[in-house]
């Protein structure tokens, strides 16, 4: 399964997915900042954060299966961080566990926030939202091209993998496997480079000038303001009261 190619979500499935992308970006950014600043021992706060983001995800009808599948990619990173903490940090065991807890809980919460943003918003609407919020154009360009180029990269990798399988008749030794892999990676870069150049030329030839245009003209409405007010108030009250 190509995760980059799969259909992201039902973008108009609930009132929470229909929100203006700027409102979603501002709300989630505020939430992420609050999560990052929360002390690791504030367990009750984390519980309420989980409740809030779970409620948002359920209300948005975002598939938990899809989310968990992507969360799987975060696990190796967390494992690596965990090992680094245990090996290199000079604290005692309980302090190390605390650091690990802090990293894990915050990473997962932030992952869920980003998951809501991605799965509830069409990619180009999200980019348009960032653009309307005056995000520097370099960052917008990087995001736009990463989106397209990563999928090109994965398409090329898949086709090379197929070609390799079709001509593999025996089990390779590890050293042979590594050699093949290195050669494939270098070819992959060249092939992806060529394709991305062609795609960019195709975009240019249809008038693209690094500015994202969408059919929808975004305008915030009452629902947007109600959601953002309630959400920000909730976070603030958790922060202050607990």
């Amino acid at each position: 399964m190509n995760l980059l190619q799969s259909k992201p979500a039902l973008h108009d499935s609930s009132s929470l997915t229909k929100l203006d992308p700027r409102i979603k970006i501002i709300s989630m950014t505020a939430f992420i900042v609050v999560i990052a600043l929360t002390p690791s021992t504030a367990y009750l706060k984390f519980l309420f954060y989980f409740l809030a983001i779970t409620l948002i995800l359920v209300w948005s009808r975002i598939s938990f299966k899809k989310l968990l599948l992507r969360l799987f990619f975060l696990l190796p990173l967390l494992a690596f961080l965990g090992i680094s903490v245990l090996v290199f940090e000079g604290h005692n065991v309980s302090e190390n566990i605390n650091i690990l807890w802090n990293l894990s809980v915050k990473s997962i919460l932030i992952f869920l926030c980003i998951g809501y943003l991605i799965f509830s918003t069409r990619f180009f609407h999200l980019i348009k939202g960032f653009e309307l919020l005056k995000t520097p154009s370099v960052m917008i360009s990087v995001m736009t091209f990463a989106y397209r180029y990563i999928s090109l990269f994965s398409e090329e990798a898949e086709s090379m993998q197929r070609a390799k399988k079709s001509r593999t008749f025996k089990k390779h030794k590890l050293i042979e496997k590594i050699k093949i892999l290195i050669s494939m990676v270098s070819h992959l870069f060249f092939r992806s480079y060529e394709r991305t150049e062609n795609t960019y030329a195709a975009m240019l030839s249809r008038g693209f000038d690094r500015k994202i245009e969408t059919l929808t003209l975004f305008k915030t409405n009452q629902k947007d303001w109600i959601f953002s007010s309630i959400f920000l108030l909730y976070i603030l009250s958790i922060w202050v009261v607990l």
Partner: protein
Amino acid sequence: MKNTAVQVTDLNFSYPDKTNALKNINFSLGKGQSLGIIGPNGSGKSTLLLHLNGVLKQDGSVRIFGDLIKKQNIKTIRRKVGLVFQDPNDQLFMPTVFDDVAFGPLNLGMDRDQIEKKVKITMKNLGLNGYEEKNPSHLSLGERKKVSLATVLVLEPQILVLDEPTANLDPGSKKSFINIIKKISTTKIIASHDMDSIFDLCGRVLMMNDGRIVTQGKSEHILMDKELLEANNLELPSQLRS
């Protein structure tokens, strides 16, 4: 001058690796005419096409309806010259067919109310009704070629430029695609080494090899010259073989 759709003068182009892809190219094409650019692989056909709407630029001049292509008028030029790429995978990069067809009109600042209407009409004319929400990468090659054409025809270009439009198509899809192109009454430039399509579609032919123009003239003269064709790795159209 306004009756001359394309005027290319002393065009030269080298790629960063110093490959001279175009050497002293000169030709012109009248409004409403169809020009076939033929030549073996690597002869410079695609590179030449990329100069016609300003994707590539180096030495020499390209004029579209008398206007020299320059940075200031690039949007107008790209609206006038629609370029369909050889590989539809390079041309199609949006999540749905509808978004892909609407990409050009949005970038060229067309009225949003009109865009939806235009996209639907173009798709209907090409027999793409019902494809709006489909992912372009899940379509057959023939369908992707049609969508690629739609992404350009929606801009109502005055010059239609097609790079290898029939490459890799099965005979049925090829015939249907040629019939679609035949019905388009605008000025056309078609690069191909499929002599049958060129014979069917173009009144004039320009032959290239190794980045140079070998000859140019009426199709019936050049496409019947077996020796000349074979000397340039080409062959007679099947209609003329007997």
